[in-house]
């Protein structure tokens, strides 16, 4: 079955920057040039094992999608990788540097920047101030330099130019002077993504970037994500929108119940029986959120039944 699948995907595979041609489609497959490597990561909440990843590698310069049903542990995995949560076991490294026990802000400084599924915009700051905050190495952020504008004024200007540039690309330039708290859900997603890019990250981790973004904007967002790859950055994103996954990702990793159950090119993964079982279901093209709900309900019912059995 595997050989068959590789054949099929070879015709689809995007060579070039991603360099993922010929990579095995087994879960935890070795990549030619991994930027991020994680081993034996587990995280339990009480009795629930939210994440249990044996081995995973993220290819440098590629766009990797992390998909899976609600509650699969994708967000928790993001939190663990970026230091916002601590795993029970495991080790992981960015560009060979271990990130175990490294504080979130240091992870960001090392070039791994994430956005949040539940957006975290700074409501009582203007959009442009939100953006400026993202810039790194600001002289004016040091206490002793802060009172003296001549020390940081010039840098602030270049930061602002960069911010305005990004705002224009994300079609938020008209909102420049508005409080971020007045933005809609989709606009908040955009702002958070644009703000993360102010950091100039090597690896961008986006948690459901398309949720709540209107279809017209989605297209241009897809373009931005692709251009990130063209600039040499690595993108890892969680998404339920299968069109987006199919359109832009070079590689897809499927999680279910905390484990990685499949990997491969988009086309290969979507044809994979394990994925269809775990996630896509028989109605491949029906609305996924509806499907998720059904699945979740079924899961909950099963759990309740199990608990009652054990009593």
């Amino acid at each position: 079955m595997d050989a068959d699948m590789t054949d099929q995907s070879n015709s689809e595979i995007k060579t070039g920057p991603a360099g993922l041609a010929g990579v095995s489609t087994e879960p935890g497959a070795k990549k030619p040039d991994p930027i991020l490597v994680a081993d034996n990561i587990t995280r339990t909440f009480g009795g629930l094992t939210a994440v249990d990843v044996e081995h995973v590698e993220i290819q440098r310069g590629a766009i990797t999608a992390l998909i899976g049903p609600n509650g699969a542990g994708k967000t928790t995995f993001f939190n663990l990788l970026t230091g916002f949560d601590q795993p029970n076991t495991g080790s992981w490294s960015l560009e060979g540097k271990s990130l175990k026990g490294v504080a979130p802000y240091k992870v960001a400084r090392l070039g791994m920047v994430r956005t949040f599924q539940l957006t975290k915009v700074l409501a009582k700051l203007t959009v442009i101030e939100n953006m400026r905050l993202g810039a790194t190495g600001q002289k004016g952020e040091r206490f002793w330099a802060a009172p003296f504008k001549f020390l940081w004024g010039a840098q602030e200007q270049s930061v602002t130019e960069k911010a305005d540039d990004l705002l224009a690309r994300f079609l938020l330039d008209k909102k420049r002077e508005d409080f971020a708290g007045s933005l809609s859900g989709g606009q908040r997603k955009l702002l958070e993504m644009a703000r993360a890019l102010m950091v100039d990250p090597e690896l961008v981790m986006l948690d459901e970037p398309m949720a709540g973004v209107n279809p017209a904007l989605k297209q241009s967002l897809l373009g931005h994500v692709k251009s990130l790859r063209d600039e040499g950055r690595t993108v890892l994103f969680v998404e339920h929108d299968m069109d987006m996954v199919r359109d832009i990702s070079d590689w897809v990793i499927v999680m279910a119940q905390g484990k990685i159950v499949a990997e491969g090119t988009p086309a290969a993964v979507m044809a994979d029986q394990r994925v269809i079982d775990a996630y896509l279901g028989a109605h491949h093209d029906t609305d996924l959120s509806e499907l998720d709900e059904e699945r979740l309900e079924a899961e909950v019912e099963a759990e309740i039944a199990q608990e009652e059995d054990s009593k």
Partner: protein
Amino acid sequence: MDILEILRAALQQALGPQAIVFALAAIGLNVHFGYTGLLNFGQAGFVAVGAYGMAVTVVTFDAPFWLGILMAIVAPLLLAVVLGVPTLRLRADYLAIVTIASAEVLRFVFGAVETKDTFGGSNGLNGYAGPFQRANPYSSGIDLGVVSFGRNDLWSLTVGWILVAVCCVLVWALMRSPWGRVLRSIREDEDAVRSLGKNVFAYKMQALALGGVIGGLGGMFLALKQASVVPSDYSTLMTFYAFAALLLGGAGRVMGPVIGSVLFWFLIAGLGSFFSQSAGEGGWIPEVIMSDTQASLIRYIVLGLAIMLLMIFRPQGIIGDRREIAIDGR
């Protein structure tokens, strides 16, 4: 009813040393709460440590006056580190609990019999303010018609208001900078700030220290003005008055705490004078309704009511930004 007398009493307090002490305490709180979102319920502790830092250095350790002034800055700095290191990594409420408790502990330690040799017990310390009084350049007081201040008060007020102005300029300069932007962002969502590579703990520590030192300057000023420090001055009431002043004026605004403090003491004194004239002998409020003692206390009820109404109809404070309140922090 003597309106002029009410106005005189109100202005005397609004421009006087009390307003300065609470303006400084509230400017510090503004850095903590208004800008960074830190819940410091023990600002009185920082004020006390500023006052005692100076007095103890000069009186107990017989050190020169300038070293006393230096210690009025160093002592609150140390307190900020001691309180901040264990709590600032935790959720916001831990700082609130620790600060309110430590302020009380400090007050009891300063007033305790066991530490009388160092802190002077409940009578406090005095005899350190000589150099300050001798530096007074004025030869007489000032009479502005409605209000008048004696020679010593005039000197204290000059120094005090200059101190307030300097702190305001410093806060203004800091808060317009990228450093201030990080602080305001922490107030909104510290995880977002972390995710962008900023060391949130270090910024919170700096904010706690800065606000504490400004509060400590308030203590130093009070100690210089009174020429004595007594522990009973630094009760939790001081913290709550400072918070009242801050909210009255507008948190997160440079001038908010100053306007709030001036207004707070204007109202306290003005209402006090109004009710003491109104009740008792010769007043228009009959004895059955309100006695003399009640008249001296009713102002706090009225002031509390005023603050409540303000929070309902103008929650951003006197000079706050309406737009900010309209934002919901989803």
